[in-house]
């Protein structure tokens, strides 16, 4: 039988960071990590030890994250829709002062990264999921569609709309 204290002390922080990096929601990440431990304890007899315990736990957690995303809302909220009407918003490069020469330095500024993270947090859950799978896990479009149960054309619409909203959010200073 698996020792609960060892389980938590050895894997909880890793799993929490794993979940948080994808979900960007601390409370939700903690809920899913707790659910993962409960599922692991309940089904420990199914763990075949062909992989490490951490790999097995991570796969359970990953499945729970995907289940959450699949159920998540696709439409954007009133809060974010207010930002989407601004077709005359300034050019992003000019607004943040990016040129061909300084791009790498400018986009690494902590303040800008924080502002972008705040804007990402306003996106609908499923749109955030697309961003996590695309930019964090570098998944191909077919894999993103499969994991989130999206059609290819829905995926492109989400990516396009997300970028328009992020641009509007960044250039309106409403992060």
């Amino acid at each position, binding site marked *: 039988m698996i020792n*609960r*204290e060892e*389980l*938590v*002390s050895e894997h*909880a*922080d890793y799993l*929490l*960071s794993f979940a*948080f*990096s994808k979900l960007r929601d*601390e409370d939700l*990440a*903690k809920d899913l990590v*707790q659910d993962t*431990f*409960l599922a692991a*304890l*309940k089904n420990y007899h199914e763990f075949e030890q062909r992989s490490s315990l951490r790999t097995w736990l991570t796969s359970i957690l990953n499945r729970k994250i995907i289940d959450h995303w699949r159920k998540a809302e696709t439409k954007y909220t009133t809060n974010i829709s207010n930002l989407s009407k601004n077709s005359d918003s300034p*050019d*992003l*490069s000019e607004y943040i002062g*990016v040129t061909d020469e300084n*791009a790498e330095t400018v*986009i*690494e500024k902590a303040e*800008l*990264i924080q502002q*972008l*993270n705040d804007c*990402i947090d306003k996106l609908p859950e499923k749109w955030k999921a697309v*961003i*996590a799978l*695309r*930019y*964090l896990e570098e998944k*191909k*479009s*077919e894999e993103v569609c499969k994991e989130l149960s999206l059609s290819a*054309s829905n995926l*492109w619409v989400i*990516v*396009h709309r997300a*970028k328009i909203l*992020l*641009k509007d959010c960044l250039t309106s200073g409403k992060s």
Partner: protein
Amino acid sequence: MNCRRIIKKIEKRSFGNISSSDNFAIRFHLSYCKNCRDYERTSLLLDKMLKKSISQGNTLVYSAEEKQALVDHLQSNI
């Protein structure tokens, strides 16, 4: 080809899966369409920014109290 279809192809290209004929169609369209050129520039910049931002600040740890509460919860539920 209209702007909507070109924008879709620009986003497809950012995922890395695009044919050479689509690539040509993008380049041809961008040669005369300023709106799509502006969109492409913003899209490429956001790709870089998203990659940076999404990979930072993701480390989160439980406090000792939270870990104990988690252990207690696991003890009482299984």
